[in-house]
């Protein structure tokens, strides 16, 4: 029986420009979590806001039984969440959803993250290293202060390029502007997370390059457990659920024009 569990807030700090890093003690989640999966947090103990909020797993320490998520304060739900202090408990469900597929050892992956989309790529990159899969990271944000957890990403010791829209760090432009340069490095797959327009550009690029791309899609969600069909994603053959068939999808399955 899976029961909604409680996660104790271990660390909770602002990252700048409305970003937050939230570290929770949640051993049951950490034990089975896969990159690309998410946890569904209750951000309020009242009925307002009512619904849980989904957050991609950013960091998982199985030995310590800890998980971390990254988020940006956007509305009342995340504003309330930002007030939670270390030592408090949060009601959470997870790990939920289908994450990134596990690549073969010896292959190489290009990881592309924009904005809050960098969140799942950290956990993914740590697992790729463990699995013996090469990884090259492309990260983007509007400005340098929004390139959250950059030093942690740098600490992975993987090739890393950054782009900011205002040029305050790395290349001036969007993360997808870094893509054409990568054709020479022959990745065998692309993993991406971020806003839909960015993912669509990644999908188009990968299709042209002839390599498979897997994208973590952000969609408004209610239950997170496959019950309500609210988080519909248009794919070949009809609507499927971001929470259950996703949130990671093969880019070629997604009907980008209908989203």
């Amino acid at each position: 029986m899976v029961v909604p569990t409680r996660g104790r807030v271990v660390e909770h700090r602002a990252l700048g420009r409305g970003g937050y890093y939230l570290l929770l003690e949640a051993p049951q989640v950490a034990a089975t979590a896969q990159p690309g999966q998410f946890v569904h947090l209750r951000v309020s103990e009242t009925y307002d806001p009512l619904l849980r909020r989904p957050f991609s797993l950013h960091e998982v320490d199985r030995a310590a039984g800890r998980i971390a998520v990254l988020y940006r304060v956007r509305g009342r739900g995340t504003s309330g969440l930002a007030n939670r202090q270390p030592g408090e408990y949060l009601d959470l469900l997870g790990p939920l959803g289908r994450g990134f597929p596990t690549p073969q050892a010896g292959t190489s992956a290009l990881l592309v993250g924009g904005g809050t989309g960098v969140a799942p790529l950290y956990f993914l990159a740590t697992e790729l290293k463990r699995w013996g899969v090469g990884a090259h990271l492309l990260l983007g944000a509007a400005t340098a202060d929004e390139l959250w957890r950059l030093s942690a990403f740098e600490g992975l010791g993987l090739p890393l390029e950054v782009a900011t829209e205002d040029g305050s760090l790395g290349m001036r432009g969007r993360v997808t502007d870094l893509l054409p340069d990568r054709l020479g490095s022959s990745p065998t797959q692309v993993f991406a997370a971020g806003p839909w327009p960015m993912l669509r550009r990644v999908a188009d690029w990968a299709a042209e390059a002839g390599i498979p791309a897997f994208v973590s899609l952000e969609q408004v969600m209610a239950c997170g457990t496959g019950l309500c069909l609210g988080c519909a994603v248009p794919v070949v053959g009809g609507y499927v659920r971001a929470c259950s068939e996703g949130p990671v999808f093969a880019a070629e399955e997604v009907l980008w024009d209908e989203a």
Partner: protein
Amino acid sequence: MKPDLSTGLGPLRLTNPVILAAGTCGWGLELASYLPLDRLGALTTKSLTLEPWPGNSPPRLAETPAGMLNAVGLQNPGVDYFVTRVWPELKRYSVPVIASIGGRSADEYAAVARRLNRAAEGLAALEINISCPNVKAGGLAFGSHPDTAASVVEAVRRETSLPLLVKLAPMTADPVGVARAVVAAGADALTVANTIPGMAIDIEKRRPRLGNTVGGLSGPAVRPVILRLVWEIAGALPETPIVGLGGIFTAEDALEYLLAGARALGIGTATLVNPRAAIEVLEGLTEYCRTHNISRLADLVGAARGQHPEGHP
């Protein structure tokens, strides 16, 4: 002593009044890892139509104060998929299963009922959804008027001897009139009620927040409205069993509905927030009976109405 929580919806007997509501519990199977399905009074499938329905374009959800709007649009893989792929697995559970049915015409509702009656042996009941606010044809179009509502119920009644529930719309000109009409047409019980039509607008995009423009409001926000509707219908039709459904998140909420006259309780949006909500409501009802020395929960049905079935003056 263990209190008696059993209840009846016409010919349908339930060991307890807690029912998972249509469209908020998938096929029930999705919840099996979160709670013991067999302890529930019943579960209701998402609405089944004759052919697969694709559902509405996203976004399908918008959170509102103490509630949510949905415009899923009855996405379902069709009754044949249910009969061949879902039912063989679902029927292994002992929980009574109520199949919700939808359609674009009275004939289509009847065809779905016919298929279920023949091919899904062991179903506990059918619930006729004549009140979905999110589909252009069918749904609410039937539930808005006594005559059209009755025509659907009559058509389904001819196809099956299964107990029939009818899920009413909350915002029609004459909900009591619709209730009377569907009971006269053969309904055994009423589910009160479906979501309340509503909408929300994104002030930055200056567009409706739902792909379908309008959706159905549910959650704690609707509870006082639906509770009053249960009160009205239970007063007008005291012999007709009612499933109270609208914003029940706790046993306290459920008790309000029982006291107003509902004989069973639908748990809907609460399950989307807490997958164990239904079992927690059930445990809370048991606890209430214990602390209040109540041996039969059914004795509380309508108890807030005093001596007069139509309610206090």
